[in-house]
């Protein structure tokens, strides 16, 4: 039993090999990213603004096409899938957008119902309602359920976005700066929430963040992006004590 658990934990669920991506002829953003994420792991990705962190996870869900390289998720190379096959995989992945990307013609409730009703047609209205309320409670926003996104603050929008990502119970979650723009207390709550989701559903996460408190709390492993490649990787401890000036500056 223990051995089995161990095996699941060490098997890579995301495998990126030599990923290249450029925009136009003179903006070569990713220059050969190679990276593995094990099942059940929380991977933190650091890097300067504009270094291409968001691009990597957008390639992983097929929002952007990779120029070169292979991207394996759940042991399937997603660059070779057609639309239908990709959508089946996408149902098992969640994506929290950097700017929340809430549907602003819908209320918070409708935002959360929208993916749920489409993909779980067997649920009754009462069950849908219960799920929506439950997930909103978990991000602490139940009182905003009938508001429009335009009536919410940036932090509240982020939490609704998180709720919308969680509602389909994905096995892999990509968080694009989940705590940026939040106060320290809410940030801490979100970080704890990420941690508890990982524990409860054994989800795998890739978390892009500039918030070192979040990285410290949630991360099992950290990778740092620089000049289009993975510059360094290690645990929080290891990187914190790194001799490298540049790496060290992240931890100040």
């Amino acid at each position, binding site marked *: 039993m223990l051995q089995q658990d161990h095996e699941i934990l060490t098997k890579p669920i995301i495998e990126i090999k030599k990923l290249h991506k450029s925009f136009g002829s003179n903006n070569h953003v990713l220059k050969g990213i190679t990276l593995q994420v094990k099942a059940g792991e929380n991977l933190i990705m650091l890097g300067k603004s504009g270094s291409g962190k968001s691009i990597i996870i957008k390639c992983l869900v097929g*929002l952007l096409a990779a120029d070169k390289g292979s991207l394996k998720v759940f042991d399937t190379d997603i660059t070779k899938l057609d639309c239908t096959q990709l959508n*089946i995989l996408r149902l098992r*992945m969640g994506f929290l957008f950097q700017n929340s990307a809430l549907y*602003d013609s819908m209320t918070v409730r409708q935002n959360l119902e929208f993916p749920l009703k489409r993909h779980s047609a067997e649920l009754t209205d009462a069950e849908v309602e219960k799920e929506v309320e439950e997930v909103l409670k978990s991000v602490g926003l139940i009182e905003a359920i009938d508001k429009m996104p335009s009536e919410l603050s940036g932090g509240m929008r982020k939490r609704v976005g998180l709720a919308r990502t969680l509602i389909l119970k994905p096995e892999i979650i990509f968080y694009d700066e989940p705590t940026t723009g939040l106060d320290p207390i809410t940030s801490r709550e979100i970080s704890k929430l990420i941690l508890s989701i990982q524990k409860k559903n054994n989800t795998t996460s890739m978390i892009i963040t500039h918030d070192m408190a979040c990285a410290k709390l949630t991360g099992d492993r950290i990778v740092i992006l620089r000049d289009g490649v993975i510059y360094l990787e290690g645990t929080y401890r290891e990187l914190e004590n790194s001799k490298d000036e540049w790496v060290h500056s992240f931890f100040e």
Partner: protein
Amino acid sequence: MTSYLKDVFTNTGNVSLFTASFFKSVLKQPFELKEFANQCYLLGYKALPLVGITGFIMGLVLTLQSRPTMVKFGAEAWLPGMVALSLIKEVAPIITALICAGKISSGIGAELGSMKVTEQIDAMEVSAINPFKYLVETRVLATTLMVPLLVVFADCIGILGGYIGMNIHSDVNLFRYLSQILESLTFLDIMPATIKTFFFGFLIGLIGCYKGFTASNGTASVGKAANSAVVAASLSIFIVDMMAVQLTDILYK
């Protein structure tokens, strides 16, 4: 100059591809019936007052302006028929289509453009919902259905406006007015005019969606999408109208 030509050609190519993917996926499951009905209501309802007012004014003005000429030739009895004919065949379709280009096409362009810029379309895509089916198809189908209905509405209101125009100078019985109109209308007058309005509706929806859906990132592109949707839609309406008129001219010789 060459870069301008290149732009024109790439644009034409992209619009063709966009149209092709519309027809390819429109017959495939799942059908977004609820959203389609919702869009029909929203788009049709939004343009209704404006279309009504302009239709009324067109009927009234056409009657008042043609009246002196008709009276001079002693053909006053033909006035209702003539006004109704020009309303149904040309004025109501083109005016309604232009209003819808300004109101609906730009609205769709701005809405989808801002959804694109704020990554809402991407969000739909990653939650395995086909944004093309959900956003584009429903809107294009809705305008294809609603613009002809709005034209019929404009026809009716325009004829009513004409009746009031008649009554400014003389006292005409409504039934007599209507029967004069029905006498002068034939099926061949109405049919081509109705068919072309479906094309107008299709273009209005398609161009709005295309401009919004392909907006580049950045908020400035939202305004650009709305603006260029109106220009492109209006121009293509005139072109299609011209082709439709020439075609019917050949067919009914």
